[in-house]
C-alpha cells in the first residue's frame, strides 16, 4: 500500500511497483489508509510522513497500537530530514526508511528486504 498525498509521486509509484510485479493499493491520506488496513491489511506500507490531517508518525502509532499491526512492514517514504534518529529511537525491526528521491534500484532492494522477513 502506498500512502502519499503528492499526486505525481503516487502515480509514479504505481507504475514502478507494478513493473516490479506488485499490486499497489493507492491512498492519498492517513484516514483512508487506516480504513483500508482495517478492511484488509496489506503486505507492506510505503508511508509518507508530512501529510494532513494525520501525519505518518501518527498513522504509524495507530497501526502499532490500536490496529495491532506490530509486524506489518512499514517503510517511511519521506523527503523530511532527521528521520533516521527518530526511527533509531523506536527500535522497530519492521520499520525502515526510504529517503526521497529514491532510485528504482533502492526501491526494489528495500521492498525485497522487508517482504522477505
Amino acid at each position: 500500500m502506498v500512502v502519499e498525498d503528492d499526486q505525481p509521486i503516487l502515480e509514479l509509484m504505481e507504475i514502478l511497483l507494478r513493473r516490479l510485479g506488485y499490486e499497489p493499493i493507492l491512498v492519498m491520506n492517513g484516514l483512508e489508509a487506516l480504513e483500508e488496513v482495517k478492511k484488509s491489511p496489506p503486505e507492506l506500507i510505503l508511508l509518507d510522513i508530512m501529510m494532513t490531517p494525520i501525519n505518518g508518525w501518527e498513522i504509524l502509532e495507530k497501526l502499532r497500537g490500536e490496529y495491532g499491526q506490530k509486524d506489518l512492514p512499514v517503510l517511511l517514504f519521506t523527503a523530511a530530514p532527521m528521520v533516521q534518529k527518530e526511527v533509531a529511537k523506536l527500535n522497530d525491526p519492521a520499520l525502515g526508511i526510504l529517503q526521497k528521491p529514491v532510485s528504482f534500484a533502492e526501491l526494489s532492494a528495500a521492498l525485497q528486504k522487508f517482504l522477505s522477513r
Partner: protein
Amino acid sequence: MDRFVTIWHYRVSHTDLVRFWVIASLAISSTFVTALALARNVDTIYPQLFYFPILYASYFYPRRGIYVAGACTVAYEALSYYHSFPNLLGMGYATGQGILFICVGAAVSYFTDKIKTSEARYRSIFEYSPIGIVLFDQNTFAITLANDQFGAMLGYTAEELVKTPFSHLFFNRDEQRRFYERFGSSEEIVDFETRLATRGSEPFYVNLSWSRLNGNLVSCSVIDVNTRTQGKEAAEDHAARYRQVTESSPTGIVIIQNMQIIYTNPSFTTFSGYARDDLIGRELSAFVHADDATDFQGYLKQAETHPLPPGKTEFRFLTKTGETKLATLFSTMIKQGGKPALLINIVDISEREKLKDQIEQDSERRRGVISTVAHELRTPLQPIMGYLNLLMQDPKGFGLTDETKNILDRCLQSVDRERQIINQMLEFSVLDSGKTDLDYSTFSLSALLKNIIETGGYMMKADIAIEIPLDVTFEADQNKIYVVINSMLSNAVNYSKPPRRIKIIYRSSSSDTHHRLAIQDNGVGITGTQLDAIFEPFQLADSEKLSRKYDRIGLSLSIAKKYIQMHGGYISVDSIVSVGSTFTIHIPKIRPKEVVKDGT
C-alpha cells in the same frame, strides 16, 4: 652717601656738622643781637630770632632740639633779667618768652618725631614686606615706586618697573579689561584675583588690593597666590577629568567604603533603575540577586586584595523593576577621602547574553528553514528520478535509441548529484546544530577501505596503491569515517585527469598518539590561498577560480572536517599546483574522554 668724621669718640656725618654750625651760629648771633638791642634799648622783635635755631634744631634733631631751646631760653633770660632788673613787668615778659621757646621746641620735636617714626614704619613696611607693593599714577598707570618683592614675583628688579605702566603687566587683554572695570568701579578694592605676566610671559596668579592715596597716587598690594592657585587648578583639573571619565563611562562604576555605596555613576543608576539617592549609603549586596548573595560577599572580601579575584566574577543584579541582569565585575582599591575604598566596574553582560540567545534562536530558525527547503526540493525530484529510472530500466520496451538513452543517463546523473548536494546540505545543517552523536566501534581500516573502493568503483577510475598494514584498527564512528574517506577519494578522482594515480598511505608509528591516513593524488592541486577555503561551507561560490576547478566539492569537505573534529582529530593538506594534493586525516588512537560534541 654721607661722609663721616670722628670727633672724640663720636662718629659724626658731614651733614650733622654743617647743621651744628648753622644752629650754633644762629643761636650765637641771636644772643648777640638780643644783647645789643637790650643794651641800646632798641625795642624790636629780637626775641623771635631765637626761633630760628630752635625750629631748625627741633626739626632735624627732635630730642636734642629741646636742649637747644633750653640753652637759647637760658641765654635770653639771662640777658633780659640783667637789663630789666628790678622791673617786674619786664622780667615777667622775658619769663613768658622763655617758656614759649621751650614749648615751641618741644612741640616741633614731638611732631617731627611722630612724622619720622611713621615714615620709617612705612618705609620698613614697603621694603621688608613679604607682599609686593606698588605705587602708580591713577591716570597714566605709570609705576612711581615698587618694592623688590613685587619685582621678584615677575622677574624684574624694582628699578626696572619704575615708569612702566602697571596696566601693561597683566597676562592678557581679558585680565587687563577686568582690572580696568574694577579700577573704575571703586576707590578701594580688596582681593582682586588676576593674572599678571612674568618677564617670560608666563601667567602669574596674584591677589590685588588697592586704595587711592592723596593726589593721583594709588597704592596697590600684590599677594602671590600663584603656587596655591596653580596647585589648586591642577587638582581641580585632575578631579574634573576623573569625574568626567567615571560619569560618562558606559560601564557602571560604584565606590564602596565601609560596605556602603558612596558613589555611583549614571551608567549604574541606569543599569539598576535606582536613583543615585536610593543607592548612596546602601550596601551594594542589597542589589544583588539573593542566589548570588553569598558568592558576592566572598567576592567583596577578596576584591580588597585581588584586582581580579579568583572564582566567580559574574553576578546577577536585581533592578528596581524586578528584572534580573547579569554583570561581570572588576575592582580596584582606591583612596577616597584619605581612607581605602573599593571601586567596582560593573559591566552589563545581560545584553550580550540576550544577543547570544537571539543568535541561537536565529540559527535554529535557519536550520528549520533549511529542513523545510530540503524537503520541498527533494519531493519533486522523486518523479523525475523515478521516471528516468523507469525508462532506463527497459530502454527497448520504451523504444529508446542508444542516443536518447545516453541523454537520459546524463539527466539521471544530474538528478543524483542534486540529491547528493541536498543531502549534504542537510547533513551539514544538522552537524551545525550539534545534534549529531558519534557511534563508536572498533573496525579494521583495510576492510573499510576495501568496502569504500568497491562500492565507489574507484578501481575503475584510477590506479590506486594502498600501503596500509592489515592489523590497523580504528576506534571511531565507522559510518562517519566511511563518509570522510569516501569524500577524499571522490575528490582525488574528480580533480585529476587520467592517468590518475592515487596513493593511500598509513603513516603512524606505534608510539604515535594519532592514526595518520594520507590520500595522495596527482591532480590539479590547490594554491595556498584556496587551502582554507576548501573546508568552508559554500565558500566555493565566492571564489571564482576555485569554483571552476572544484565545482563539485560542495559540502563534502566541510562535513569531513566536522566529522574528524568530532573525533578529536583534524585534516591537513599539502598541495603543489599541477603536481597534486595530499589530504591527511589525523585521528586520536584512543577515544578522547571529552569529544567536542557540537563539532565546532
